[in-house]
């Protein structure tokens, strides 16, 4: 039961987790010149561009509701993509730490998911407020939004664990993740609606993607005012549980290899710097 062990580790190391998240937020928002501007500006710009060119990709929506649907969808998508992109490098980026202190590795990718969640929360709050003022107003179905966020959090954490392990074991994992992430962006209904897809076979395949349901579910909750469909919520949550379990197993199995791998690359670097040669650390 690696997943339970990982949850236990995270609870025990909550102080470290909290400090890592605080560090990320301080560095990203408080001590940076464009932190908040980038956090909100980029999704607004993306939404503007899509609204200028592609409102026909959601038949039956006027331009204004298209803008809100794209904004909400993009924020939900961005949470996944941004977390994964950071998580793939997070262990390598903390090689120094991993070589010096014994702690459960899951803390690092998990802290990424939590700090990026703050980013998403800021964006979604803006989206909900904007929609309340200029869009469809405040919907009764808004209660379902935290539910979808919880499901997405589970999905993102599991995926983050997996890519964090891959990032250590394969040097080019980051590029691979970037490419897959881009493909997944086009396969997720962020700026189009599923009924414009011409091939029926493709239309039926699209819902296999759990993010498909998260994006549509959040939109239903915030913009359209429709209650969540239990089957969609359950399907995405099941994906989340499976990913979290798989990621936990991967982290647990690979933990010694990761410690050795990162310790080795570090000592090689320091050996290169000091001009001495060292024998490989393991046989």
């Amino acid at each position, binding site marked *: 039961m690696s997943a339970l062990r990982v949850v236990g580790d995270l609870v025990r*190391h909550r*102080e*470290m987790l*909290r*400090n*890592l998240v*605080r*560090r990320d937020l*301080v*560095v990203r928002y408080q*001590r940076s010149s464009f932190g908040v501007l980038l956090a909100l500006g980029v999704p607004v710009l993306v939404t503007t561009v899509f609204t200028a060119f592609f409102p026909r990709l959601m038949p039956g929506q006027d331009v204004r509701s298209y803008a809100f649907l794209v904004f909400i969808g993009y924020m939900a998508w961005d949470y996944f993509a941004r977390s994964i992109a950071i998580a793939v490098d997070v262990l390598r980026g*903390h090689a*120094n*730490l*991993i*070589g*010096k*202190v*014994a*702690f459960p590795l899951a803390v690092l990718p998990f802290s990424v998911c939590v700090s990026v969640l703050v980013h998403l929360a800021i964006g979604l709050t803006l989206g909900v407020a904007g929609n309340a003022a200029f869009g469809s107003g405040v919907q009764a179905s808004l209660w379902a939004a935290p539910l979808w966020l919880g499901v997405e959090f589970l999905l993102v954490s599991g995926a983050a664990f997996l890519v964090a392990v891959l990032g250590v074991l394969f040097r080019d994992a980051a590029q691979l993740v970037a490419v897959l992430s881009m493909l997944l962006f086009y396969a997720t209904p962020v700026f189009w609606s599923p009924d414009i897809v011409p091939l029926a076979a493709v239309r039926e395949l699209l819902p296999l993607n759990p993010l498909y349901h998260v994006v549509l579910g959040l939109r239903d909750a915030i913009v359209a005012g429709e209650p969540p469909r239990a089957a969609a919520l359950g399907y995405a949550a099941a994906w989340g549980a499976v990913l979290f379990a798989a990621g936990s197993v991967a982290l647990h199995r690979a933990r*010694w290899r990761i*410690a*050795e791998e990162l*310790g080795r690359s570090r*000592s090689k670097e320091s050996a290169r710097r000091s001009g*001495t*040669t*060292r*024998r*490989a*650390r*393991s*046989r």
Partner: protein
Amino acid sequence: MLDGVTLRVARGETVGIVGKNGCGKTTLLRLIAGILRPDRGAVSVEGRVAPLLALGAGFHPDLTGEENVYLNASILGFTRRAMRARFADIVEFAGIGEHMQTPLRYYSAGMTVRLGFAVAVHLDPDVLLVDEVLAVGDSGFRTRCQERFRRMQEEGRTIVVVTHDMSEVREFCMRAAWLADGRVAADGDPDDVVTRYLASYR
């Protein structure tokens, strides 16, 4: 790299590990700290370990000295509350005073190490693992470090120190172990071991 190392360190002992570059001294400390797992054999430690190889672990240049103290301590498993009680002592020991609210990027290398060291020795570990850190800081700080080590010895804490400074081994350690070819080549009285180790260079 290490093969067939048997080392038993009693509570309250200070053991110096000596040997050439790449002989596995740091790997040995990492095994004791639980960072690495031996392919064969076992490592067992009683009590709480503070690895001084983790000096300033997780320090971030954009955070202030104070923020870094709490981050570093939490990585080593200490709560904010436990650290708050020791905070004044840490600041005094590090001798950084008014710069605690300054981001670490403006610290000199010596100040950063002093801060990391101050946190580590205030964690009251049962076992302290030291990896060549005494060679930093100005002489005032070195004196404080030495006093602190003496006090930890008196308090019956166990210290395992890796160093290339043979006078340090002779002066501070109750015992020394010489690692060569992945094994313990000699183990015992610091003077004897250091003499034999230095003789191996001739």
